[in-house]
């Protein structure tokens, strides 16, 4: 990630991989922004944390899974991943349960974190 654009954009993901297309459409926005040379941070909060669980499968509805999208984010120079640690705890999850290491952030730190980004999109 180029440092000059490190804090361009924050994408907040608040929906689980299934039941709606919010997560996928949020990830698509992140990918497009990265393709346009913007630095992108991702914050997984609420049910969005479930996107980070291993072995999420597409399932019988024929929707594309989101795990392959997540795994290709580093190829687009997206490597700033944050997880809402309060959600993580409330769901009884640990770092070991996630598909890759994700930095933990407490909700008290959200306002300052949001302030650091020029553009914030919520999904």
């Amino acid at each position, binding site marked *: 990630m180029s440092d000059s654009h490190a804090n*361009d*954009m924050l994408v*907040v993901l*608040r*929906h689980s991989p299934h039941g709606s*297309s*919010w997560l996928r*459409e949020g990830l*698509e*926005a992140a990918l*497009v*922004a990265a*393709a*346009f040379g*913007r630095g992108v941070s991702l914050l997984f*909060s*609420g*049910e969005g944390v479930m996107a980070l669980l291993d072995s999420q499968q597409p399932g019988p509805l024929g929707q594309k899974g989101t795990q392959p999208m997540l795994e290709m984010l580093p190829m687009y120079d997206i490597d700033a991943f944050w997880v*809402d640690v309060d*959600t993580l705890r*409330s769901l009884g999850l640990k770092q070991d349960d996630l598909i890759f290491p994700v930095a933990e952030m407490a*909700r008290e730190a*959200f*306002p300052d974190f*949001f302030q650091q980004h*020029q*553009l*914030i*999109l*919520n999904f």
Partner: protein
Amino acid sequence: MKTLSWPRRLAGPVRYDSSIVTMAMEVGSLPMRYALLVQGPPYSVQASHSALRFAGAVVARGHQLDTVFFYHDGVYNAARLASPPQDEPHLVDAWRNLHDQHGTALLVCIASGLRRGIVDAKEASRHGKEGFSLAPPFELTGLGQLIDAGFTHDRLVTFAP
């Protein structure tokens, strides 16, 4: 989501109450360039209604509303064949009026639109469909336009269901 609520007001979608009009008024006298992101479908939820009221307040205060981007179910706001009862607001026409009177670009995410059957004449022909469903002056465009709007306007305000 109720059990996992978080402080939405910090950056979450603007929703529901009359404070959206106040929000537009609080920005003071310096004209700003606004963009809206509409993710809610017309009629089923309040997002589009609120977005239009906010849009009206923005231009009434002398600001520029340059761009509205429709994503997710928001693409249904561009449905050419929408025919609501005459005693209800015509949301599609209201967006077109905004374009006609203030030059607001009405941008529809092409990927979201194609999935949901919102296609212009060119895409309809390309996919072998009879007729088209996107009402000009709405235009199909890529997500890159949303990112661009986010960085080139003074404010981007999201209206989600």
